[in-house]
Each structure stands twice: as C-alpha cells, then as structure tokens.
C-alpha cells in the first residue's frame, strides 16, 4: 500500500479517535466513516518500483541523520 495513503488513514483515525473521546455519542454517526475506510484498506498490494525507490531513499536519508552518536 502507498505509504502516503497509510499516513492519510492514520490522520483520519487520529481525528476520529479525538472526536470519539470528546463525545462517545458520536459512535453511531462515525461508524459509516470507519466502514468506508475498510475497502481502501482491503486492497493491500505490493510496491511499485518507484515506491520501492522512494522508500529506500527516505530510509537512507533517515539513517544519515543518525549516522553519528549524539554529542
């Protein structure tokens, strides 16, 4: 699955959780939204070559940030 999509789903879940914590009565109203997210999640597929390359580039950038121990 596209990493950007996972982040977007995570953000949506974060908003839903906050809304539910503030007002548990919203559960019935929000359940259709959650149900709507399931089909998107159900299409787990492998990376495209471009996504693999982007993932590696991002990982190497992170590794470079912590190449040396903290001062």
């Amino acid at each position: 699955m596209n990493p950007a999509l996972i982040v977007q789903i995570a953000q949506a879940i974060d908003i839903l959780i906050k809304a539910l914590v503030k007002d548990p009565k919203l559960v019935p109203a929000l359940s259709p939204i959650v149900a709507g997210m399931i089909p998107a999640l159900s299409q787990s597929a492998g990376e495209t070559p471009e996504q693999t390359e982007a993932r590696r580039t991002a990982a190497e950038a992170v590794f470079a940030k912590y190449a040396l121990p903290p001062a």
Partner: protein
Amino acid sequence: MSTASSASGRSLLHRRGALLSRALPAIFLALALVGCATLAPGEDPVVVRTEQLLTMATPVYDSGMAWYFANAERLSPGAREVFERVRVGFPPAYRSLDSALQLYKAGKRKELMNEFAEVQRLVEQLLSLVKALGGPDLAGGAK
C-alpha cells in the same frame, strides 16, 4: 552552533516529539488495520507484509532516534548503550531485509524469516525502550 540555534533545534525536536507521540498511536492502528486487510488478488503476502514492515519501520526508527538524541544527556550509560545498539544495528538490518526481499522476489530465496524478525525485534525494542524511559507512550496516551 550558536545558543539560539541550539535552542531552536531542541525546540524543534521537542515539538516533533510531541507531534509524533500523538500521531504514532494512530499510525500503528492504521498499520494494524492494514496488516489485517486481505491482500489484493495475485499479491504475495510475504512481499506485501515485508514491504509494509520496511515502510513503517523507518518512521519508528526516526522518531525513536529523535527522542534518544533529544534526551541522550539525561539517560544512563546502560540505556544509551541499548539505544546505540539499535542506532547502529537498524540500518544494516533494514538493508539486509530489503536485499533478502529482492532475492525472494527474484525466486532466489524461499523465505525472509530471520531478516524480518531482526527488523521487527529492533523496532519493538526501540518502542519499549522509549516508553520505559518516559518517552511517548506508543500504545496510547501522549506524554
């Protein structure tokens, strides 16, 4: 580095840590949902799950290391030693799993169990360590 820029950098790290402490539980929930999802037709579960682990492991490493770097001065030598093992060990473990995945895709490997388990172990160790030392509670509430 000047005092002002140092303070600015620390402030940025703290803000980022606070943001991550709020966002990571949701990211893990999304990952759990993705992990439970059925695969698209024709997809190899080993490939998809491994790619998902590789995708999510890097932000965890990034956030865990950012917290470590921001708090290194107050950590005990023992804790620093464990963080250092993760800091040094994660990149080669990640690359090793990534390479093994390419071999698997090419039909030159039958499984990726050892490499997969090592990346997973390092991620879990980092999560546990940060939480145990008073960092973001990745299982729920923010600190």
